[in-house]
């Protein structure tokens, strides 16, 4: 891809990930839980020496009958009792019987989700914000649609097709360009997609000729627990890919970037298509009326709009700086502000965007790894299906963490966009100066805390 001074904050620090051997992720999650037991069952261990006939008699005396017996431990039975009898009462009854060594409920353990995605160990960013525990609580509802306004998303296979610039190109007549084919990146698994939208070329498909949008969308909902690739924070939601960026100089190098008209159109399309969350990992240092009005319409329609603050170590760009937008900056693996992350009074939250350090000492820089494709190959319409994980660094990568967290909150029941913003802000881990500050906003998102909500006194 030819480098351009694009106004996008598109993974400007994008680097290929030097992947090594598979590493199985670890979890330090708690192993205790509220007891749940199989109704109508008691696990009974009879004392050694108790004969079969006596066991049967004791089970009958206790009000039950044999349901199953251990193949490995003599005298260990599952005793079936009436489901109308509380398990605790049945356990107490059997425990008092002579000949019974112990009786206990047939407790139900919970299958903790420790994703088996082959490269999950690379995702320090998800561990930093407690993703495994988050998934125990909420994985995202398919009824919640997250619009990704970006370079597109490689979510479908497309045969070569012809594009022209239509309304966007004001120069002399150009010959339409034939592009593609494009291939769906390999780790979408069961991820759901709404019909995409192309606000640039009006092709009817949000095809990705850059890789940035696919990477961002994958942070939100890459297929998870499917033994492949890495994970997405809200992998149960529905993605709505919307192409709002001109990523390749198909017609004119000066046109590479994301036209604000297309962004505004994309926001309005997301609104009318029923999106609940819009992610904008793009921006520039100046506002536009069309974009602002579209954002205001989205906010009025109860849509959470999330945007990256920018990668200039300077003031927060737009659309992030609009009041109706959740402005997201970046932290590294040490919870420090990333050296590039824009900051200021409009900053709401920070999320992992990474940098070149190696805070977790895994031998790799702290990039954000997600599936996408090689932009150089994509420029020629070639998507590789091997080593499809790429490490990007930037506030573009931080923003989808917050968009995904917002989608999880909506899935959990916080159905008001303003309340979602409040919940994310109030539950963030305060970093930097106490309280909200311009370097970290309200702090690092804490999805577990946000999803846990409030009890009466806790």
């Amino acid at each position: 891809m030819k480098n351009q001074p694009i106004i996008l904050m598109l993974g400007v620090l994008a680097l290929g990930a030097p992947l090594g051997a598979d590493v199985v992720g670890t979890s330090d999650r708690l192993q205790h839980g509220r007891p749940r037991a199989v109704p109508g069952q008691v696990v009974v261990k009879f004392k050694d020496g108790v004969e079969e006939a006596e066991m049967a008699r004791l089970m009958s005396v206790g009000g039950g009958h044999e349901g199953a017996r251990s193949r490995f431990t003599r005298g260990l039975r599952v005793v079936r009792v009436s489901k109308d009898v509380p398990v605790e009462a049945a356990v107490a009854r059997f425990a008092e019987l002579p000949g019974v060594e112990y009786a206990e409920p047939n407790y139900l353990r919970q299958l903790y989700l420790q994703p088996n995605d082959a490269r999950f160990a690379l995702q320090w960013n998800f561990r930093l914000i407690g993703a495994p525990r988050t998934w125990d609580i909420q994985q995202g509802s398919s009824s919640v649609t997250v619009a990704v306004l970006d370079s597109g998303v490689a979510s479908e296979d497309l045969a070569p097709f012809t594009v022209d610039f239509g309304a966007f190109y004001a120069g002399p007549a150009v010959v339409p360009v034939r592009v593609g084919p494009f291939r769906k990146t390999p780790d979408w698994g069961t991820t759901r997609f709404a019909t995409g939208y192309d606000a640039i070329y009006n092709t009817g498909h949000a095809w990705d000729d850059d890789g940035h949008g696919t990477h961002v969308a994958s942070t939100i909902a890459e297929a998870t627990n499917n033994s492949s690739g890495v994970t997405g924070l809200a992998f149960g939601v529905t993605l709505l890919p919307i192409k709002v960026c001109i990523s390749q100089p198909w017609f004119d190098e000066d046109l590479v970037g994301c036209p604000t008209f297309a962004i505004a159109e994309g926001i309005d399309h997301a609104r009318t298509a029923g999106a609940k969350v819009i992610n904008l990992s793009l921006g520039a240092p100046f506002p536009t009326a069309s974009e602002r009005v579209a954002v205001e319409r989205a906010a009025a329609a109860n849509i959470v709009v999330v945007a990256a603050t920018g990668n200039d170590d300077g003031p927060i760009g737009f659309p992030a700086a609009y009041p109706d937008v959740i402005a997201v900056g970046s932290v590294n693996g040490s919870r420090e502000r990333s050296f590039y992350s824009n900051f200021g009074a409009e900053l709401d939250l920070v999320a992992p965007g990474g940098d070149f350090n190696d805070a977790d000492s895994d031998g790799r820089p702290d990039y954000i790894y997600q599936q996408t494709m090689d932009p150089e190959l994509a420029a020629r319409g070639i998507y590789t299906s091997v080593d499809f994980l790429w490490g990007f660094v930037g506030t573009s990568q931080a923003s989808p963490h917050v968009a995904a967290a917002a989608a999880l909150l909506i899935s959990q029941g916080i159905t008001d966009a303003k309340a979602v913003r409040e919940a994310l802000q109030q539950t963030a881990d305060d970093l930097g100066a106490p309280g909200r500050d311009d370097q970290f906003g309200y702090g690092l998102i804490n999805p577990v805390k946000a999803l846990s909500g409030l009890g009466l006194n806790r």
Partner: protein
Amino acid sequence: MRMGRRGAIWALALCALPAATLSAAERFSVGFEAGYQVLSSATDSAKAVFDGSTGGATFGGSLRFSIRPKFFVGAGFSTFSKQGERVFVASPSSPVFELGHPLEIQLNSVYGFAGFRPWPNATLVPYISLGAGQTSYQEESTIGGLSDSSDESKFSWHAMAGVDYRLPGLGGLAIGAELRFASAQDLIGLGGVSKVYGETDLGGFSAVARISFQR
């Protein structure tokens, strides 16, 4: 149930009183109570986590000793539990969003009291009493399969007014009704919705029916 030092001293002092002053003619009663309790000092918090409800069933019991014909002392306990769910509420004026995580609270009070009966020999015996003790509060939530619990215990005041009716010919069996008000300051308000609403007292009114054996 945990009992703080201050509450324990109050309860013990009030219970010890009759041992020093009772005469053979003085009466004793043991009663059991059931009724309805309203968390009227924390209505916003209760409504938030209990789907708009502020009350529920309460149970308890008490011992009473007469120290003079018109005066009595005693000790009692009450328990209240209710199930709801965790919510999110951004501010006192914001809507409440239910999150589906089960929540259960348990309130237990132990207290001593002293009371006055203006007409101890009437058929219907009205009385009032004031007490002090300790109220403990437990809260447990289940979030994503893991339990999260907390407990607090604070000094509490109790005010009661009621009437007893001794059933004739039933060997000292009596029935009655009682209205109560309890206050347990700073029992809540440290976190959760009670912090959002600025409510710190989990006391409130309750109305109970009482059955007792007197002699």
